[in-house]
C-alpha cells in the first residue's frame, strides 16, 4: 500500500552532528518512522545512533515509532533529552 511521498526531517543535537545537516526532505515509501530511520542511515553513513534509543515526534507531537507516516509529515527523531 505504501507509495512514495515527501517527508520533512529535522535533526537535532547528536543526530544533527552525525547526519552532517539539520534538515532534509526525502521521497520515501517507508511505512513508519522506524523504516524511515533505517533509510536515513543508508543515506547518511555517519548516522549510527541506535533507533532503539530514539523517540519520534510527528508534526510536533510525540508519536510511536510504528505510527504510519502521511505525505508532508514533519518528522523529528529525538535522542535522549537533557534539559535543566
Amino acid at each position, binding site marked *: 500500500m505504501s507509495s512514495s511521498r515527501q517527508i520533512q526531517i529535522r535533526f*537535532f*543535537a*547528536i543526530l544533527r552532528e552525525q547526519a552532517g545537516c539539520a534538515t532534509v526532505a526525502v521521497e520515501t515509501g517507508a511505512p513508519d518512522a522506524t523504516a524511515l530511520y533505517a533509510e536515513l542511515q543508508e543515506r547518511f553513513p555517519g548516522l549510527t545512533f541506535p533507533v532503539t534509543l530514539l523517540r519520534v515526534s510527528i508534526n510536533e507531537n510525540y508519536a510511536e515509532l510504528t*505510527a*504510519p507516516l*502521511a505525505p508532508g509529515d514533519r518528522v523529528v527523531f529525538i*535522542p535522549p*533529552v*537533557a*534539559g535543566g
Partner: protein
Amino acid sequence: MFELTAQPIDGAALSARLRAPEAGALTIFEGRVRNHHLGQPVTQLEYEAFDEMAIREGEAIVGEAASMYPGAQVLCVHRTGTLQVGDVAVWIGVASAHRQAGFAACRHLIEELKLRLPIWKKEHHPDGAAEWVNCSVEATARPAGDDLHSRQSALPEVGAAGQAKLAKARVLLVGVGGLGCPAALYLVGAGIGRLTLVDGGKVERSNLHRQILYTTAETGSPKVLAAAARLRLHNPAVQISIQDGELTAGNARTLVAGHDVVLDGTDNFASRFLIHDACLALGVPLVQAAVHRFEGTLDVFQRGEGGCLHCLWLGRDPAALDTAGNCAGGPVFGPAVGVLGVMQAAEAIKQLLGLGGDAARQTRLVNLLDGSQLSVGRSARPDCPVCARVDRLRKMPAPVNTDRGLFVDAAGVRALGASAKVVYLTEPGEQPPAGLPGISAADLAALREFALQGPLVLACRYGVRSAALARMLRAEGMEAIFAESPRS
C-alpha cells in the same frame, strides 16, 4: 507560562512578575551549570532546543501543574545557547497561597521538564573534548532502571525472562483511591511497561489516610495527574498514561482493549459490573477488590474459569447491591484498603508472570480487625445469563474475536462487495479524510448500527483504535467487521 530564551536569565526580574497579594509563598528553583558531571570536569554547556515543540510541551507541563495546584501561578524559563559554569539554565517560580503547594509544584515541574522537553546539552571538557549528555551509547545501552528490579528478578519464579515479560506488560487501573494508590506503587515498582490510570476524582483531605500517593499539597488536584507525577518519580522506566474522567458504559471496552490485565479499584457496584463485563467480553483478566470498614474481598476473574461476577450475584437487584455495598463516603480502615490494594497488585503481577494458580477459582476474604483470612471456592453457574452467553459465542464455529482476516486493504474492501462500508473513526476535533463518512470513536451505539447494515470496515488515523474496536465488535458476535490496513 513557559518561555525559551537565548539571553541570560535574570531571576530578580522574573520573581517580580510573580507578585500577587494572595500568594504567601514564592518558591524558586534554579538549575545551574556545574563544573563537573559523572566525575569529569566541565567548562561549559551548549543547549540546543527543538523550539516549537519545547514551547508546546513546556506550556502543557505548566498547564498540568496549574490544575494540580489550584491557585498557584507558575513561570518557567529555559535557556538555549552556550552557558558558562554558574549560569542559570532553567528557572522555575511558583507563587502560591501556602508553602506546601509551592515546594511540591516546583519539584514536579523540574522533573517533568527534564523528562519531556526536547532540549539537549553538550558538555565541554578542559581538554577540548565534548559530548552530548545522556547520548553516549555505552551509558544508555543498559536497559533503563535495570538495577531497580534486580532483587525481584533474582526470584527464581521471576528471572530475567519474567522481568522482560513485565517490562512489556500493559496494565489498566481504574480508580486511583485507597486500593489503587498502593496497587499502583507496587506495579510501577515491579517495572511493568505501561500503566494506564483512569479516575475523574480530585484529591481530598478526608481521603489521605488511605490514598497514600497524595499529600496535603495536592488537595484539589485531579487524582490522575498527582498520581502520575508521583509514580514517574518512583520508576521513570514505566510509561504512565492517564484519563482524567470516569469509566462509563460508552468507553469501558475501548479503555480495557489493549491491556494485559485490569485492576478495579472503584468503590461502587455499577462501575464493578461495567469493568467486569468489558474484561469478560475482551478476555482480559480482572483483579477486583472491595472493602467494607475493616474487611475486604479479593477476586480474580478470568474468562472460562471460576465463573463471573454475575454468577456471584445472580438474582440480586444491582440497585440494592449498590446501596448496601458502596464504601464511597463511608468510614473505612486505611490499612484494610492498603492490604487489599497490595494484594491486587500481587495477583496482577502473578497473572502477567503466569503464576496465577487457582486464584481465579476463589474469593478471598480478609478481616483486619480479628486477623482472619478465608478462601471460598467459586465456580461458574450453568444458569448464568452472562458468562454462559459469552461462552456460547466463543464456541461458535465461525471465528469470533480473532484476528483472522481482520485487516483488509483497498482490494480487500472491494472484495467485500458493494454493500461494504468504510467508516472513519474520528477523535474529538478530528475531521475524516475527504470522501469517507466519519463517526466518533466514542459513539459505540452508532457504530453497532452501522455494523448491523452489512460488512463494515473501520479506519482511523493510526490504525490502532480501528483494530481495537473491530476486535471488540467481533467479540460481541458480529462477523463482518474489518479494520483497514494502516493508512499510508
